[in-house]
């Protein structure tokens, strides 16, 4: 799998149209969150169990559509559809009083587990109380009427929950970006970062735990992949079609800005995180103003000599590591 992923990255860097999908975990279809992000409320798991399909808006253009994960229909909660199971040819058994327990009736009405993301979605509702832990997965499973044993399906526990959350938020961000595709590139980047970080607000109290989980070696590869895809999406919809090394420097720079703002955000206590957005604005201005990479950042030139060290300088400045 890593060889094909490396090949995909190489092809992506060389060819202009985005025809290659970097392998994404096959989680469920993205939800469309309301655009009024200031009043973002996290939908309850049961409300999400409605059929939603993942499809590009019509008339998107001649750019070949990116390979989205196969659209999984999350079907509505169905009361026991295995009615035939109960009318079994149970030769003996139900006559044996030991075997029937009063929990059987509740189980016969429980829903089916259509796909793993059903459990993850329900577990997200339990995260504020229980954190990004296997306990949240267990309680989420119980909420959906499933046996808690399904929590073993997620060996990385809280890390898988964080990964799912990131994937869903990234998909929602793509929907947001598609609707703003014509706007000024750099301004759109700042809005995109703000929009994406606002999705964390419902979980901001537990977010340091999620960040720590993402640093674990078992979770780090998928966390980095999600971050890479995120900044790639942002740059793509901001209009970047570069095919040279600046592809890497731009994305690396934006990733640095994103993560530094994220770190600032978890300790920000201002109203509506105003200080965070100001911090973000300052970092974006830094990237625009300082170093050779700034010209690439503004899209005025692409390529150029010595972009790597320039990009590195700008990244260090953005992190505030050069004594600013």
């Amino acid at each position, binding site marked *: 799998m890593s060889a094909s992923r490396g090949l995909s990255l190489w092809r992506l860097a060389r060819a202009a149209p985005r025809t290659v999908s970097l392998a994404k975990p096959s989680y469920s279809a993205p939800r469309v969150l309301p655009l009024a992000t200031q009043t973002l409320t996290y939908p309850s798991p049961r409300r999400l169990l409605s059929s939603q399909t993942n499809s590009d808006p019509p008339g998107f253009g001649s750019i070949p559509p990116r390979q989205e994960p196969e659209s999984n229909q999350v079907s509505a909660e169905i009361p026991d559809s295995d009615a035939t199971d109960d009318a079994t040819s149970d030769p003996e058994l139900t006559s044996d009083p030991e075997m029937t327990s009063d929990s059987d009736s509740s*189980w016969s009405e429980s829903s089916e587990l259509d796909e793993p993301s059903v459990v993850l979605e329900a577990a997200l509702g339990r995260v504020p109380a229980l954190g990004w832990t296997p306990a949240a997965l267990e309680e989420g499973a119980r909420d959906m009427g499933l046996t808690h044993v399904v929590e073993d399906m997620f060996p990385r526990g809280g890390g898988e929950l964080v990964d799912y959350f990131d994937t869903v938020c990234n998909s929602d961000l793509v929907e947001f970006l598609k609707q703003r595709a014509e706007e000024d590139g750099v301004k759109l980047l700042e809005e995109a970062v703000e929009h994406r970080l606002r999705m964390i607000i419902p979980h901001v109290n537990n977010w340091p735990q999620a960040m720590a989980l993402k640093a674990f070696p078992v979770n780090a590869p998928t966390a980095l992949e999600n971050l890479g895809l995120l900044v790639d999406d942002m740059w793509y919809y901001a209009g970047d079609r570069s095919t040279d090394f600046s592809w890497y420097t731009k994305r690396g720079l934006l990733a640095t800005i994103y993560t530094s703002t994220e770190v600032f955000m978890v300790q920000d206590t201002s109203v509506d995180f105003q200080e965070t957005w100001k911090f973000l604005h300052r970092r974006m201005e830094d990237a625009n103003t300082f170093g050779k990479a700034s010209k690439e950042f503004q899209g005025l030139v692409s390529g150029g000599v010595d972009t790597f060290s320039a990009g590195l300088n700008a990244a260090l400045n953005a992190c505030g590591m050069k004594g600013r």
Partner: protein
Amino acid sequence: MNDLMSGGIHRLWKREMVAWLAPRPGMAVLDVAGGTGDIARRVLAAMEGQGRVIVCDASEQMVDAGRERTCIDWLVGDAEALPLPARSVDACTIAFGIRNLTRIERALAEARRVLRPGGRFLCLEFSSRPPAGIERLYNAYSFAVIPLLGAAVTGQRDAYAYLVESIRRFPPPELLASMMGDAGFGGVRVRPLSAGIATLHSGWRI
């Protein structure tokens, strides 16, 4: 006899199976074709006695022999038609029993029927493919030594010749995994044990 044939490793395999299942107190676990009660005993110990363990075996003698073990429910029944209501157990295990069944798909469908949504199915079985590199030694051991051991210890050479042949006829691990997928299990994982002599399959009922 199991100890003789496998050199005692079968205990490790069973221990590994229960460790992978990780039973927690309060679960209901069904062990199919588990006449000796090995798995049931280990599951009960892991659950610290709280929870329910049911053993279902087709052979009445095994069930009668095992009834002395308390805290375990014993049932006589066929793996292809389990005498349990639908959605009644959290986990279903089968150790070294599934290769003796004529219709494996039926057994998988039954396991799916009795499992609650999200419940887990674990299967421990010999691999039909000898581990790479030691095929000749493995084949020689299987076809020459095991029937002789059976003849010497229990006087039933044919039974042990059948054992070895049934292992060879059993579907390879990948095929069993795809059969599990077809039967309605998701997240199917395959773990070879002892360099591939035995295999653990795990799936969740979806």
